[in-house]
């Protein structure tokens, strides 16, 4: 979450709660709603590393609030993040390790493993369908995130089928 917060602060200085709201507004239900405590802890670490700085802003009849802004070092870190290529989705699949190794030990049968895994993926897909249905059609950012997850899941299922064809 460090870099996500830096990106939001590059747009404008903000306090912790505003950052939480900005994340929720942008990604809708498709992004796990960040815990406010987690945001404050992350901001404190970013401050310690010199990537953000905080100023106290006085509020009438309320305690001061801390507004964070990006430092030059923070901007550099953010730029490096944006410019470096991003890792693709997992290639070393945990299920694949199970599928290959478990039958060698006699603990499991490949056909059973694949069948169970397929149904598990379909459970996840059903939940994505429901998430898609309950997401505001105007929130394209969230819908694209969901669609991306669906496409990954479809690829996982297709691959499972390839494993089944080749290994059984």
């Amino acid at each position: 979450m460090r870099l996500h917060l830096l990106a939001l602060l590059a747009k404008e200085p903000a306090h912790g709660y505003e950052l939480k709201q900005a994340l929720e507004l942008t990604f809708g239900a498709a992004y796990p709603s960040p815990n406010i405590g987690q945001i404050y802890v992350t901001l404190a670490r970013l401050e310690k590393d010199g990537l953000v700085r905080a100023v106290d802003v006085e509020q009438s009849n309320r305690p001061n609030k801390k507004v964070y802004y990006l430092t030059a070092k923070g901007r550099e870190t953010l730029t490096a993040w944006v410019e470096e290529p991003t890792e693709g989705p997992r290639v070393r699949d945990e299920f694949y390790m199970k599928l290959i190794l478990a039958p060698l030990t006699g603990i499991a049968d490949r056909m059973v493993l694949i069948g169970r895994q397929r149904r598990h993926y379909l459970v996840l897909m059903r939940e994505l369908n429901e998430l898609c249905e309950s997401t505001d059609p105007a929130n394209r950012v969230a819908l694209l995130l969901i669609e991306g997850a669906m496409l990954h899941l479809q690829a996982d299922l297709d691959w499972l089928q390839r494993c089944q064809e080749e290994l059984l």
Partner: protein
Amino acid sequence: MTLKAHNLVKIYSNTGVPVHAVRGIDLEVDDGEFVAIMGPSGSGKSTLIHMLGGLDVRTSGEIWLDGKRVDSLTESAWAVLRRRKIGFVFQGFNLVANMTVADNVELPALLAGVSPREARERREFLLERLTLTDRATASPGRLSGGEQQRVALARALANQPSLLLADEPTGNLDSRNTRDVLRLLGEVHRDGQTIVMVTHDARVAALADRVISLLDGEIIDDGRIPRRRSATGTAGEVIDLR
């Protein structure tokens, strides 16, 4: 409608060398159940679904619909049965080229003896749900693959069949159109129609109660897709799992 197949076999021998497309399938589908059939190409999925709808003759074995044995019915008896109780979505759509979209969808209802008014209302409802209303007067040849596919689904549902059989009904759809189809299938399922569907599309398969996997003409896995307790707790977790 309940469906039962017992030791169903299909051997094609038109090229001289017999090909075992389906090798002894046993299957029971409860009334109102939605079953997805998955498997690689050549695994016998299409042959199986065609046999279940009487569109391909079985080599041996039994098929029972609502407790009646149907595998030995004549072609015309099958045609009557389909008209009254079965909707079929073909992979190649099979729309009537010289009729409008509207007529294609109304035809099965009219053949089944529904009044023209009811047939029209049902057609309007289905085309609206599949965002095809503005294509009603077009001929199928002028439609995109995705549009033809949705017309084929509308036609299959025109009679509110107690059994819907479908062979890859979303193969040509983009994600927005798939969403319309998913919504409609979900409703049809909730209304209690029995559905057996061949699909490689996980979005569609995920609507099913049960998934069957075929490989080399045999069922190698058959199990329910479990429902988890409140999936919507924090929706983001679904994606976070990835």
